[in-house]
Each structure stands twice: as structure tokens, then as C-alpha cells.
């Protein structure tokens, strides 16, 4: 298979799967962070935000060891008969979920925090169960935050480099993503290919931001 095409497939699969997992994990986590008065809120929030300030290679380094045959995660997956996750696609997914977590959780958290408690209480007195309230009130009211979280999570995973290189290596068709391919092309002095790929990623990222801005503007108008 064409290495560029293979890298596009791996990248989209990785970003898509990571985003879905992050939304599923991130929604309850963000809800808890937005509403709890627990003393654990601040430490947990700091851990979630850590990948924003930590050098990606540091995260990748720890993950590599954690997933290795002697690491806790590695021993766990080996016990399950799955082997170790390092240099595999599932390993990349685990790493991406951790790495992109703040980019999904933070927008969701501010979206949830902005929902008026009174509106939720009103829904409760109108016979809506807690789960019902989440789907019929919280989610519709935080749609802009959901869109932002989805786009950020996806775009950020597409753009990751350091963690991927540490954990996933550079296996064509399995773990080689676009950002790593670009690096390879530059290393090989294939500047023409690198230009095309870089331009493609630039347009993709710009498009994502345009969509976000446009959706954000539309919500503001709808609220006036």
C-alpha cells in the first residue's frame, strides 16, 4: 500500500477511536469535575491537565515502560493473553487517550459548569431522572462544548508526534501516522512529498478551526 495512504488510514483510525473513547470517558469525568465539591477535584483536575505541560516524550517514555513486559500495564495485558501494547496500534490508542484527555475534558468541563443549576433542578421537579436530565438538558445545552471537545480531541490526536514515536515506533500500516511520516520524509530529504503532506495537514487544521469558529458563532446568535 502507498505509505502516505496507509499513514492517513492509521491516523484517522487512531484519532477517531481516541476521540470516541475520550468522549465516553471524558463526559462523566468532566461532569464530576464541574459539579463536585470533593477535595479530590483539584488533584484529579491537575492530573487530567498534566499532558498539556508535560513534554510528550516524557509521557511517552513512562508509557513505554509501563506497557513493557515489566511494567504494570504490560504485566496486566500479558496476563490477559494480549501480549504487550508497546509498538502496537492499541498501545497508540491508550497513549493518545491520555495525551489528548485535557483537550476533551476541559471544554466539556467549562460547558457543563456553565449550565444553570436552577434549570437542572426545574427538570428534576418535572419528573426527569438524573440520567434523563443528562440527555435531555445537559447534552443539548452543552452542544457547543461537545463540538469543541470533539474537534480538539480529534485534531490534537492527529497532530501528536512525540508520544507516538516513543510508544508506537514507526511501523508502516500499523503505527506510522502522518506526523511521523512527515518527519521520515524530511529525514529522507523528500522535500516535495513533505511539502504536500505538510500543506495537507495545515489545511486540515485550519478547516477544523474554521468549523469551530463558525459553530461557536452560530450558538451565540441562537442565544441572543
Amino acid at each position, binding site marked *: 500500500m502507498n505509505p502516505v495512504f496507509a499513514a492517513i488510514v492509521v491516523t484517522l483510525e487512531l484519532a477517531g477511536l481516541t476521540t470516541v473513547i475520550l468522549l465516553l470517558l471524558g463526559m462523566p469525568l468532566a461532569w464530576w469535575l464541574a459539579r463536585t465539591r470533593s477535595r479530590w477535584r483539584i488533584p484529579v483536575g491537575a492530573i487530567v491537565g498534566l499532558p498539556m505541560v508535560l513534554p510528550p516524550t516524557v509521557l511517552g517514555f513512562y508509557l513505554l515502560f509501563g506497557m513493557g513486559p515489566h511494567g504494570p500495564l504490560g504485566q496486566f495485558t500479558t496476563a490477559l493473553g494480549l501480549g504487550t501494547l508497546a509498538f502496537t496500534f492499541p498501545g497508540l490508542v491508550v497513549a493518545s487517550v491520555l495525551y489528548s484527555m485535557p483537550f476533551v475534558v476541559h471544554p466539556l468541563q467549562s460547558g457543563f459548569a456553565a449550565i444553570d443549576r436552577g434549570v437542572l*433542578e*426545574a427538570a*428534576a*421537579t*418535572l419528573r*426527569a431522572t438524573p440520567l434523563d436530565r443528562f440527555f435531555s438538558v445537559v447534552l443539548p445545552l452543552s452542544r457547543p462544548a461537545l463540538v469543541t471537545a470533539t474537534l480538539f480531541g480529534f485534531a490534537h490526536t492527529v497532530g501528536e508526534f512525540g508520544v507516538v514515536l516513543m510508544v508506537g515506533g514507526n511501523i508502516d500500516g500499523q503505527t506510522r501516522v502522518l506526523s511521523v511520516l512527515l518527519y521520515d520524509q524530511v529525514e529522507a530529504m523528500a522535500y516535495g512529498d513533505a511539502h504536500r503532506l505538510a500543506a495537507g495537514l495545515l489545511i486540515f487544521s485550519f478547516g477544523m478551526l474554521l468549523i469551530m469558529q463558525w459553530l461557536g458563532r452560530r450558538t451565540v446568535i441562537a442565544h441572543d
Partner: protein
Amino acid sequence: MTDANDNIGLRVQLQRAQFALDVALTLPARGMSVVFGPSGSGKSTLLRAIAGLEPAAHGCVRIGDTIWQDAHMRLPPHRRDVGVVFQHAALLPHLSVRDNLRFGWRRSGATTDVLGGWIEKLALAPLLARSPLTLSGGERQRVALGRALVCRPRWLLMDEPLSALDAQRRAEILPCLETIRREANIPVLYVTHSVDEAARLADHLVLLDAGKVRIDGPALEVLNRADLPLALRDDAAAVIEASVVASDDHGLLTLQSPAGILYAHGRAPPPGTRVRLRVQARDVSVALSKHADTSVLNIVATTVKSIMPLSSGQLQLQLHAGNAQMLARVSQQSALRLQLREGLAVWAQIKAVALLI
């Protein structure tokens, strides 16, 4: 003897850092019970506890033979058959007025007739397609009322529903409250810090102060108690129930009251309508003889029941007029000159009778 199945039993305790709520009440299972108190007295917290919105509150909430909360269990808000109208309406901003009305209605399993009935009674039809964000304050409260009522609640709770509205919007909502009293046939708990609203709406009145019930009872009895802080306020007033006998072209109403015939200005409700009158103590003066040469329309024969000195230096007289009571304020000097004493027959001259509409 009251049948326990025919009243509302409340025992609510809540401890906060700066504040303790400790309320035990038995309320009638029909009509409007008004909880009146200054801000910070805990009246909104009490209402929220009844609705199940205060997880830290414990005690007992029983309506008729249905128990929402006791020592062993507490139903979450969505399992209580309650209707709540919040101070700021709290309409769901992402739904149209129609979907706001349908939100609870659908989940409560009430019939289409109930939904249509309240849309008509509260004149909500023109608003149905609108977004709550485009409604005026008065419209919002009307929708909030409708939204609570279409669930067919056992008990309607209203938390200062008029306090965020100006006088004109209030005048829009007040007739709706009358409609509810007439049509809903469910008990209402109405929380307010406005004496006017309490005097106008209450069948049963609860005075709450610093988290405790100061007194509760039939509204007219509580309103006319001369020994309560209510009677010592600057705007102390007697509340008299009357019925409209006639109205003339100039807006002067003739009213039959336990104190005799009274006259008041106001928009004319049809003859036979029961109204409440508010007679402020500072609008009442007394005379030993009946003056004919005065512009004062209302002159009522009364006897002095009690005389109480006020901190302002004035004296407050409690007057009996037939079965009704009135308050009057006079200076020490006038009291000496007229030799006022308990049991003395005096003519009360009432400068203004306010119709509570």
C-alpha cells in the same frame, strides 16, 4: 378533629454553618398557604426541601396519606408529585415554550386534556412556538406556572414568583393565581417577603423568622394579630374580607364587610365578588362623635380593644368593628385629649381603603 389524611404534615430540619431551619407545621390540604418572612428567614430553603432539592434537609414531608420523606426514606425530586414555580422561572432555554410545557407533562403521564386545558386557562397559545429567551418576565412566569400545572401535581410550590417582576407584570400574573385557586383544586405553598402578596393571597399564613415558625394560622387571624411584629411595622394594616355590592361610574365600590358598609376606589369586580381590603393603621383616625362635615367616606363605629405604645412615640389602637378589627395610630396628645381607654366607643375615620387586587 382533623383527619390526618386530609392535611399536610411538615417537619423540616436543616443545619448550615450560619443558619438553622427547624420547622414543624400542619397545613390545610386545600387553598393557598403563604410562607411570609424576611429574606434569610429560610422560606425558600423550606420550599426547596419540600421539593426534595435540599439533600441535607431531614424530617418528614407528608401530603394527605402520601409520604415524600420521613426518617427512613426520602424520595428524590423527580419522584415527588410536586409542581415548582421558581423565582426566575427556570425555563429550559433550549426548548420552545411548547416543549417546555410538554417536558414534565410527557413524563407525568397526564392527559392531553390537562395540557390543552392549562394552555387555554393561562392564555399560553400565542407563546407556544416562541423561545423562552424571547419572553417577557411575566410571560416566563406564566409559562412556568403552566409547565408545573400540566403535570397534575399534588402540591404546587411557588418561590417568590412575582419578586422579579415590575408592578405591571405582577398585575398580569395575579389573575392567573386566582385562576389556579379556582381551577386547580390543589394546595399551594406560596413563599413571599411581600406583605401585600401575603395579605391578598393567603388562606393560611405562616410567619417564618430566622428558620423558625413564629406563628401560623388562618390568614385573617394572623394578619390582624396586634401583638406580632407585622402590626408594629410602619405599614401595619388590618385586612378585612368584604364582598362587592355595587360600583358607580367613577370607580367607587360599595363593599359589604363585617365592619359595615365600606367604600373603596378600584377597578370594579362584578357584584358578589369576594375581595380583601387593606386598611393601614396610619390611614385611620378616631373621633368621639360622628362627623358629617368631612371628606372622609368611611366612618365606622368601633370600640377600643387595646392601646399599645409604639417606639415612634405614637399609640396604636386596636379597634373592634363588628366582627372585624382595625388598627389606628394616634399621637399621645390626641389620646390624652380624647381620654382614650379600653372599651371606649369611638368612630374610626378611614382615609383610604386599599382593595387588594
